């Protein structure tokens, strides 16, 4: 892999974000609104529910974690869609950048985008709601890592669809996270789901991540098995997503989608 080319693609998006104040505002605005809203809901539940009695920050913490996942995934898709919207797609794919370099660059850029939005929102929660996500302690890193990998995985899967089917796949880009959210058990324990849905939920890393976040905050214990299972599932899905991306690129070359997308 060539770091200069990876940096070149990162620079393209860095220039785009830093040139435009509305874009930066847009990145910060939605996570802040989302987290403020969940902060008030969280306060209400904390005072009216015995389940959340001991951990007022559970809902808000899960909201922050989910938002990080959402921003990472959407961020990756947005970077890809940006090339289509600006009709720069052909220029990118006729430059000597490898598929692995495109993925690496977008993975890194998506993280920066997600953090630009999330850090101000996290900072907001402490003075307004008296809650800090840092209460998750050292294990917060593993939760974020798992969510980041899964967010990127979803981003790569949707981008594979964009490569294969073109801009008509764009709507799917926006809906993937909403489709998976019910199975992620973000705000409720897995037992809440019907049995058949529980089986689907257990095949996704999300349930292990959010169950563990609740476990740490409510029970003050850590179940490392949940963290490892999430990471193992993430590794499997990531490899599948990257393989699908390569496959879609080859199919797009056969079907001519790369030319049609670019014009």
């Amino acid at each position, binding site marked *: 892999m060539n770091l200069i080319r990876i940096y070149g693609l990162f620079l393209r998006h860095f220039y785009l974000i830093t040139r*435009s104040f509305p874009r930066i505002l847009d990145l910060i605005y939605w996570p802040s609104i989302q987290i403020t809203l969940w902060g008030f809901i969280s306060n209400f539940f904390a005072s009216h529910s015995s389940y959340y009695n001991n951990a007022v920050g559970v809902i808000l913490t899960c909201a922050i974690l989910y938002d990080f996942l959402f921003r990472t995934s959407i961020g990756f898709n947005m970077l890809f869609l940006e090339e289509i919207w*600006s*009709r720069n797609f*052909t*220029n990118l794919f*006729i430059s000597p950048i490898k598929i692995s370099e495109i993925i690496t660059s977008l993975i890194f850029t998506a993280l920066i985008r997600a953090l630009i939005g999330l850090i101000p929102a996290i900072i907001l929660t402490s003075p307004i709601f008296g809650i800090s996500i840092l209460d998750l302690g050292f294990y917060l890193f593993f939760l974020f890592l798992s969510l980041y990998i899964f967010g990127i995985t979803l981003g790569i899967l949707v981008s594979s669809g964009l490569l294969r089917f073109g801009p008509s796949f764009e709507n799917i880009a926006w809906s993937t996270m909403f489709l998976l959210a019910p199975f992620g058990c973000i705000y409720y324990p897995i037992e809440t789901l019907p049995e058949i849905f529980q089986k689907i939920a257990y095949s996704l890393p999300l349930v292990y991540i959010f169950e563990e976040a609740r476990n740490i905050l409510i029970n003050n214990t850590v179940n490392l098995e949940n963290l490892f299972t999430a990471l193992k599932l993430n590794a499997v899905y990531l490899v599948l997503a990257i393989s699908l991306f390569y496959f879609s690129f080859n199919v797009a070359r056969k079907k001519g989608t*790369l*030319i049609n997308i670019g014009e």
Partner: protein
Amino acid sequence: MKNLVEVKNLKKSYDLKEAVRGISFKIKDNEILGLLGPNGSGKTTTIGMMLGLLKPSNGEIIIDGKKIEDNRIEILKKINFISPYIELPKKLTVKQNLIVYGKLYSVPDIKKRIEYLSEKLRLEDLLNRITGELSSGQKNRVSLAKALINNPKVLLLDEPTASLDPEIADFVRTFLENYKKEKKISILLASHNMNEVTRLCKSILMMKDGIIIDSGSPEDLINKHGRQNLEEVFLKLSRNKNEFN
């Protein structure tokens, strides 16, 4: 002169349609080869395969001694492309776009390269302007600078002067002539502007329905078909069995 590009029995099929049906041609060092043909004749598909955007169904493309299917990235470092149908990111400044593509092509001294191209293409005053806010003629020159950022050995041009006013179109043609002389690059020019092709190309391929129906120098083709100019030759060949006749 050696052949920088060799296309051998190239075919491309999409499901039931055959877009390119076994074409072969060569582009020599320091040559501009014209590629003419009506819409849907297979020009864009051929260029797409040469750029690695399309996988040929059959045949091979060899550029600078290497097959593109086996050495896509290595070959893409040596070629570039300009078309009015693709654009550079509109929100970035001209300079930012050139820096980004300089990095993507791993250009050793990007600053120097941008200075050189800016001077040649009269872009000095545009470097800090937003690309999307430029006129068509200015955007065209910027796209040309991007296409030359990697000092390509082979340049593929798809209608490089479409939608340009005559003065700017002439500037672009003169620039291409001079640049080719100076750098000895090979150029494939797909165009519907017959005056442009007559002026720039020593040899021409005429495509129709996915095959090469004729080839030669503009003068040879005009004489062979007993016409006054290349436009008349084009009309004769493309109207033959054309759906509009």
